[in-house]
Every structure is written in structure tokens, then in C-alpha cells.
């Protein structure tokens, strides 16, 4: 069998899953599309393992591990989706915007305080590691907030 057949099929399945992840609105349908992508990768692993005739059969072992990890992932993912549905009343991912950044700030003082630190951030990033200590008074708290 040509290796091109399973490889092309896996690529097309992966892109189908990619479309589903990007275009679907319901979180459970997004999880289904993720499963399609994982299956495409598994098909590639098996095909290349059979082609290479690996003595350890690393491809097949990794496929089994991927299947088990995917089962764990779908369990945890569905538990999270159910929890979100219980708390928010919806499982549509584009309505869950509690962490979204709004365009207009709530307080103007925040905007004035935020602007210099942002420029200091970009300056210190552009100037390298040594310049990071210059504007440290302004940048450090915001960095801490951003990473926390």
C-alpha cells in the first residue's frame, strides 16, 4: 500500500477537525472535533509504524497511549463543560466572555496608569535584559498581575 493514502487521509481528517474546532459554537462539538484531530494523528502514527517496521513498535505504543490520554481528556473536558453549564446556564463558547477584554476601560485612571507601563514594557523588552531594571517600579506589578 502506498504510504500516501493514509497520510493524505490523516491530513484531511485533521483539517476537518480543525474546521470543527474553529467553527463550532457548542463546547461539546468542539471536543468532538478535537477527537477527530487526535484520530488523524493516530492514523499517521500507525501508518508510519507499519512502514518503518520499528522493532519497538513505538508508533503503535504511542497510539495506545494517545487513545488513553484522549479518553482522560474527554472525561475531564466533559466534566468542565457540565460545570460551566451548571454555573452559567450555557455551553456556547462564544457566550462565555467573563474574561474578555473590553475596549473601553471602566475607569479613566486605569487607562492613564496602564499606558506608561505598557510603553515601559515594550521599551524594556526591546532594549534587552539589562534595561529591564530601569522602569522596574512601573513594570513589575503589572507583570506580576499579568502572569498571575
Amino acid at each position, binding site marked *: *500500500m*502506498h504510504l500516501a493514502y493514509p497520510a493524505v487521509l490523516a*491530513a484531511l481528517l485533521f483539517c*476537518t477537525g480543525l474546521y470543527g*474546532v474553529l467553527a*463550532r*459554537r457548542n463546547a461539546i462539538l468542539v471536543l468532538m472535533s478535537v477527537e477527530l484531530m487526535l*484520530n488523524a494523528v493516530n492514523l499517521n502514527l500507525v501508518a508510519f509504524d507499519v512502514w518503518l517496521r520499528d522493532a519497538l513498535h513505538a508508533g503503535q505504543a504511542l497510539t495506545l497511549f494517545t487513545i488513553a*490520554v484522549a479518553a482522560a481528556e474527554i472525561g475531564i473536558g466533559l466534566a468542565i463543560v457540565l460545570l460551566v453549564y451548571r454555573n452559567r446556564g450555557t455551553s456556547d463558547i462564544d457566550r462565555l466572555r467573563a474574561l474578555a477584554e473590553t475596549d473601553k476601560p471602566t475607569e479613566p485612571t486605569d487607562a492613564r496608569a496602564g499606558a506608561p507601563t505598557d510603553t515601559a514594557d515594550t521599551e524594556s523588552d526591546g532594549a534587552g535584559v539589562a534595561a529591564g531594571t530601569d522602569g522596574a517600579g512601573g513594570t513589575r506589578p503589572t507583570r506580576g498581575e499579568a502572569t498571575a
Partner: protein
Amino acid sequence: MSTAAAARLAADTPGFLSPTGVEVLFLLVGVVTLGAAIVSVTSRRLVHAALWLVVALGGIAVEYLLLSAEFIAWVQVLIYVGSVVVLLLFGLMLTKAPMGRSPDADSGNRPVALAVAVTAAVTLVTVVVDAFHSTWIDLDDGGPQGTTRVTGEILFRHWVLPFEALSLLLLAALVGAIVLSRRKDGRTGGENGGER
């Protein structure tokens, strides 16, 4: 040099115009699998999407069988078709997904998603075909490579430690799912699950 090498390669490997029986079967099952996957990501009925996913995953199991990976095919049937899809259906039911045609199954960025997917598909297929158009998998030589005996030997001889680590991961996932789906108000989860 390149033309001579290409000619030798072309002489060594069978062409695409005279497919073997396994290849024809692989192509047919692949078309069914891909069609089911596409229907599964575009269907507006959520339960139908989950059921088309069964067809796609079952088709992939048949492809594993055709690639002589027998054990993985049955694991695929057991875990994906048997449990993952059932979990997804239960998830759809518990989130009160509409049974009929839901008009808002796709979000607003559908054209962008289509463009990204088509671009990725064209790129990947071009690269893969260019790289592997003359690569031949010899399925007959040396017997099947994925029988239960072979898989068991390699899994419990060379991959024991990852296997055990994976069992810990599954246990952690199980405990995590239970903890996540418990109620936080002090009462036990089972009774409330019955009430709801």
C-alpha cells in the same frame, strides 16, 4: 542523477494507476470516513453530529485493520465508539442540547475557519504527497505487525513504565472528573445528581 533515481524509484514501487485490493478498500473506507467526519463537523443537529462521529471513528478502526494493526483497531472500537461517543451523547443530554435542528450550531467565524482549514489542507496534502508519493508499505512481508501478541510483547516488555504512568494519569483524571462534577454545597453529589 535525479532523473535516474526517480526512474529507479518508479520502477521499484507500484504506480497509483494500478491499485491493489487493499488500496481500493482503503480508499473506499477513507472516503466514507472523511465524508462522515465532514458531516459530523457541519451538521446542525447536535445528536446527529455525534452519531456521524461514530461512523468516522469506526471507519478509522477499519483503516487500522487494513494497515494490519489489529489490536489498535479493536481498542479504537472499544474506547472511542464504545465509551467516548457515549460520554459525548451524555454530555449533550446533560447540557440540554436541542434535539432538532439548531440554527446557531456554528459560530460567527465560520468563513475564517473554512479558510484556515482549506489552507491547512492544501498545504499539508501538497507536502505529504510530495514527500511520500513513492513510498511503499510492504504489508505482506513478515506477517502482520500489529497483532495482539506483538502489541502485548512490546507493550509489556519495552513500554511498561509509560504504561504504569498512564494508569496513574487515568486515575488522576477519574478523581478530577469526580471532584469537578461534585456539588460544592456540602451535600453529597449522588443524591443531588438524582434530584436534578
